[in-house]
């Protein structure tokens, strides 16, 4: 176990190193000049050169990357070109908002997805099951921003139940979390349904029935705990999909999280921030996958760690 964990952590570090290298390379090669952004249009060639030298952007690629890495291992993600603040400080300030949105979104998608999946499994083959599964397809196929705007229009603009975007109170969280939740629920309801269907066919369920237990007790006490765990273990893998959705949902609702930070940085070619957010997201994805792999054998002892 310890050896496995150590190997996976080394792997994760290597993957993150690769991600940092590729992102840095892309941002270096691409035809956008951050110095022009900082200096402004009217800057003289001399000013542009000075800024370039100050930021170390006149150095060869490998020197720049080496410096970045050297900073990174000491926990220094560099400074924003335009905001004159440490990137780590900026990300740290925005992280709670994004984590809150993520927690809300995951809670919503589990609540909606698992419930619908269980209902569909129990009414398998009936009209209810079929319409729920079509519904799950709709959720999987819906563009995030359209769902976001739709909820915003109906519940904030028309009905006035929730504020139109922003951040601060619980009411602000409901619509963005629900948007992420509805979209993610399609995936979970399908997995929950097939997991539940499989468990309901197992021998121990037949035994429980044969003992004379009621249907409700069999479903709630025997089938559900077995069916639900493998689905919940998928949350780790889901994080990657979530990181993408968060950029869009934060932009629709004006939610001040790291997605918005990244989006603004991309528009202004603020490379240190783009690097920082990419690395934070990649870390979340890698750790999520690792977590999913670690949890799997705890739930199902037939799965062995390799």
């Amino acid at each position, binding site marked *: 176990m310890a050896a496995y964990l150590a190997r996976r952590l080394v792997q994760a570090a290597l*993957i*993150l190193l*690769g*991600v940092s290298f*590729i*992102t840095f390379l*892309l*941002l270096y090669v*691409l*035809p*956008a000049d951050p110095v022009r952004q900082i200096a402004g249009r009217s800057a003289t060639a001399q000013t542009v050169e000075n800024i370039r030298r100050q930021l170390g952007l006149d150095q060869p690629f490998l020197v720049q990357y080496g410096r970045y890495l050297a900073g990174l291992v000491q926990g220094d993600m560099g400074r924003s070109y335009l905001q004159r603040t440490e990137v780590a400080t900026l990300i740290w300030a925005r992280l709670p908002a994004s984590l809150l949105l993520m927690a809300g979104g995951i809670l919503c998608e589990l609540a909606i997805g698992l419930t619908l999946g269980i209902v569909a499994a129990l009414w*398998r083959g009936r009209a209810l099951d079929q319409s729920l599964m*079509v519904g799950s*397809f*709709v959720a*999987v*196929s*819906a*563009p*995030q*921003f*359209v769902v976001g*705007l*739709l909820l915003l*229009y109906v519940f904030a*603009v028309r009905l006035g139940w929730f504020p139109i975007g922003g951040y601060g109170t619980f009411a602000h969280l409901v619509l963005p979390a629900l948007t992420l939740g509805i979209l993610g629920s399609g995936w979970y309801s399908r997995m929950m349904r*097939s997991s539940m*269907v499989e468990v309901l066919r197992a021998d121990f369920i037949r035994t429980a029935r044969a003992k004379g237990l009621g249907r409700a007790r069999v479903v709630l006490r025997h089938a559900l705990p077995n069916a639900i765990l493998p689905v919940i273990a998928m949350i780790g893998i889901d994080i*990657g999909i979530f*990181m*993408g*959705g968060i*950029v*869009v949902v934060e*932009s629709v609702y004006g939610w001040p999280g790291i997605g918005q930070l*990244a*989006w603004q940085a*991309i*528009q202004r*070619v603020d490379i240190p921030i*783009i690097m920082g*957010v*990419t690395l934070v*997201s*990649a870390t979340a*994805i*890698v750790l999520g*996958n690792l977590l999913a792999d670690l949890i799997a054998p705890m739930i199902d002892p037939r799965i062995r760690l390799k």
Partner: protein
Amino acid sequence: MADTTLADRPVPAGIWRRLARRPLALLGLATILVVVLGAAFAPLIAPYGPDEQLFEGLTLQGAPLAPNGQFVFGTDLLGRDLFSRILYGARTSLVIGVVANGVALAIGTVVGVVAGFFRGWIGAVLMRFTDLMMAFPALLLAICLAAIFTPSLWIVAMVIALVNWVQTARVVYTETTTLSEREFIAAERTLGAGSARILLRHILPHLVPMIIVWGTLGISTTVLLEATLSYLGVGVQPPTPSWGNIIFENQTYFQAAPWLVFIPGAFILALALAFNLVGDALRDVLDPTQRGRD
């Protein structure tokens, strides 16, 4: 060919017949057909040019018109007919859907087959690279690439292809490794077949059903990604209409003119859903191991 065996024909006959028995798949196919026809004959169907700013397309106060008899989907902020723009926008969605997904599929298949069949250091390098790509926040990467290039239709398609090949590579890799270990491949080798023959005549044909399924499902992902990039303003650039950038152009006004957001939105959803429904039905029809499971 005389030596045609079961192994050479992994795509079963009668797919269309079996597909036709699924109402949802038919609904999906019909939707795709309508969108394709609309896009192909856009100049004939569209009542106005997609960029034509109509005088009667705005109220006297300069506000867009809600759907009515003359403009079935209403008009946008510049007084252009939304129905005409949706028709031309379908071209963007379909071209990107097919091209970007085709490229992604090709990259994914090559990477997966090479890594799965030859293994060794090539395979190890390719699969480590695939793992690395899996850790990338895909949407963030796409936004970043699209924003920094000045995005044209083709650049958007390439950006999407670049972030979307990973899933295909992984499934093709898994399938190829299992196939390579099957007896009939070993038998071929014993009979003296070379790698090229085994790959082209035996491995690739077996991958075809899976590639068809992933190709169909992938178009849905691609359509959604294009719409998202265009909605953020880094996808296909106006005045070329795309369903995503119609929403991008009009979203500031969406409280007063919701049709400008929700009509194109409904089209994006319908097209993505259609490809998902068809892809799912194809998976059931083409993959015998899935059949009868639920």
